């Protein structure tokens, strides 16, 4: 009964709205799909701000389950349906929907001047060089550290690799786990490598390896792996079996002094009430750069088959402006891709400041387009390296060979 009454009242409301819209002004309705279920409230507020400026457009935000979002979206698009506007992933996953022509090219149609070339790289199709989505936020790999433990054991914040090892040794001697990280969830090893490898292989390596001037058997990369693997001494006992949940637990309860993770881990530790701060990975040598690995999380794209393309582009243009970026950081605690936003959250401001010395998160940014992906090669290689199954040279050779064999 209740549902019947509900349907009836909705029908009445629907008719009333329709009649009202018909008399007042013709409204264009846009569907907006996303995987950010936790962000529905914030997006509705952002959309309300847009609708205020554009009363002739109405945007409906729908969030799907995150892990199956790619499948839901591609199935809908392949079936000639799908939303007008959508949250897209970046790099390789963007290509999966941009290459078959499901997305509208944006360059030339909207103003992208508030975005840097690095950020646009994540939403550009390599085959034709067009931009298919407006980048929205980036993620950064940082070293979390427990301020109380550093104080209690009188350990100075390490700035160089040698200092990092010394600090870790000091914690180990005091019976504190220096690094919470483990091997069991392979992806967390790739994340961890993002804090250390770049400072060893240096600024130029990314450009050279992506252009083909060198490969992963390069001495710089092998050396970086070699150095990185010495950290296993400072990981928890049984680190081979320590998974992501256990890692966070160790850091949460103050059993581990440091944790290498992504900026996406910040809310977890804030909620757990840990007295922590963040720092970039250590420099290879005193005075050297302390680079942080960053990548673009995703973007906003327009369905090429949308019947409301004009209105959709209007909304997408809005996402490429400073007011939007400001709301994104204020309401969603993201480091926005669009320039000019004032970041109010102090932890986030710190992350953003680290971007002065940013380096692309190498495998995700450049080698997740073909099979086998650089990520699976690196993750598996790191597991083999840290369990002592293979040496740094062998792992580098496997990665290099795998990348070359990828179509």
């Amino acid at each position, binding site marked *: 009964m209740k549902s019947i009454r509900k349907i009836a009242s909705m029908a009445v409301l629907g008719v009333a709205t329709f009649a009202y819209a018909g008399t007042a002004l013709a409204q264009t309705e846009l569907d907006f799909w996303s995987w950010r279920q936790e962000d529905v409230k914030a997006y509705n507020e952002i959309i309300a701000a847009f609708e205020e400026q554009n009363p002739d457009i109405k945007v409906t935000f729908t969030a799907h389950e995150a892990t199956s979002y790619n499948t839901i979206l591609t199935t809908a698009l392949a079936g000639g349906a799908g939303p007008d506007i959508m949250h897209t992933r970046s790099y390789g996953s963007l290509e999966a929907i941009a290459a*078959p022509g499901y997305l509208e090219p944006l360059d030339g149609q909207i103003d992208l001047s508030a975005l840097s070339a690095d950020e646009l790289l994540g939403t550009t199709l390599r085959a034709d060089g067009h931009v298919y989505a407006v980048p929205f936020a980036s993620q950064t790999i940082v070293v979390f550290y427990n301020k109380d433990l550093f104080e209690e054991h009188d350990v100075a914040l390490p700035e160089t690799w040698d200092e990092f090892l010394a600090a870790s040794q000091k914690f180990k001697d005091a019976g504190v786990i220096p690094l919470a990280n483990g091997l069991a969830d392979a992806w967390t090893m790739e994340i961890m490598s993002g804090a250390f490898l770049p400072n060893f292989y240096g600024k130029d390596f990314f450009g050279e390896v992506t252009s083909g001037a060198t490969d992963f058997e390069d001495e710089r990369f092998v050396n970086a792996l070699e150095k990185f693997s010495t950290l296993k001494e400072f990981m*928890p006992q*049984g680190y081979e079996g320590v998974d992501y949940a256990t890692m966070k637990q160790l850091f949460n309860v103050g059993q581990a002094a440091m944790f290498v993770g992504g900026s996406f881990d910040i809310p977890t530790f804030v909620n757990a009430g840990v007295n922590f701060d963040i720092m970039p990975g250590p420099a290879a040598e005193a005075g050297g750069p302390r680079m942080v690995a960053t990548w673009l999380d995703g973007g906003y794209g327009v369905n090429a088959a949308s019947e409301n393309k004009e209105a959709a582009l209007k909304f997408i243009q809005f996402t490429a402006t400073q007011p939007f970026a400001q709301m994104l950081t204020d309401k969603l605690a993201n480091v926005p891709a669009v320039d000019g936003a004032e970041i109010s959250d102090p932890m986030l401001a710190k992350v953003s400041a680290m971007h002065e010395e940013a380096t692309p998160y190498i495998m995700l940014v450049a080698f997740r387009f073909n099979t*086998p992906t650089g990520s*699976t090669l690196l993750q598996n290689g790191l*597991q083999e390296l840290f369990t002592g199954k293979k040496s740094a040279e062998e792992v580098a050779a496997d990665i290099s060979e795998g990348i070359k*064999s990828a179509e």
Partner: protein
Amino acid sequence: MAQLTKSIKTPFDNAVVRRRQMRKLWLAFLLFPAMAILLTFVFLPMASAIWYSVYEWDGLVRGEFIGLGNFQEVLFDPRNNKFLINAFFNNVKVFIALMVFQNGLALILALFLAREPKGYRFYQIAFFLPVILSTVIIGFQWKLFLNPIFGLVNTLLRNVGLGDWAVPWLGLPETALGAMILVNAWHWVGFPTLVFLAAIHRIPKDLIEAARLDGASEWMIARDIIWPLMAPAVTIIVVLTFIGSFNWFEIPYIMGGLEGSPSYSTDMLGLLFYRTAFGSVSAGNSDFGTGSALAVLIFIFIFTFSTIATRYLTSREVELS
């Protein structure tokens, strides 16, 4: 219908025919839901997997017909077949280990229960209880038990002075698969136990009594009377274990992840299929073509071998006359 009415002569015949018709209608009515479900969720997906496997796929978009191209890619491309070979042999290991440990233990338990020891109802329920639990729950629960730091298993080992044995079970390529097999055995051992027990109960008591009177030892009774007479149950369990081992997915997926962590030591055909067809965050995008080809190959393999095994095992079953 005209013919039918013509042949009806007496009211009695009429009633019989009507009853027969009703029966047919009832049968159709009762079979329909099962058939519909089978058709939609078993035969149709199977047919579409075969259909998909002969096309080139760009993500979810179907490309051109390429015949056996996908099969060739799965079987002979060194980038794929090294995973296929690795996963296949892991499945073989799982099958052998489950036959020995899970079903072997089940047989011992069944022989033990068949003697109806004191409190045997309790044991029967206790052994069977894990079977009714969801695999997902068991996977997560054992992942916690095997946690190298907080886990129950290692804490126990340390407390009894076996600290050296407290290794990160799921983190080492040498122990991860073994740990998962033991978890599976713990989960499922009650099922073969129950089947074996039922088979033993079906053996006439006087046969065993007679043997006992003739002075046969317990071992001889088990080997020469019980074992041959429970052959049909063994056939069922061997075939089911074979199918289960080669379709093994939940436990490795929950405890080792989609990539068969660590270093593909727990990779299974099922995981490989899932990664290939649907993609994963780090393994890249989905490829329905090679994924379907792989699924078809797995199906052909399991179907062929379980048919041969059933034929062979049935032929050696003995009948009590």
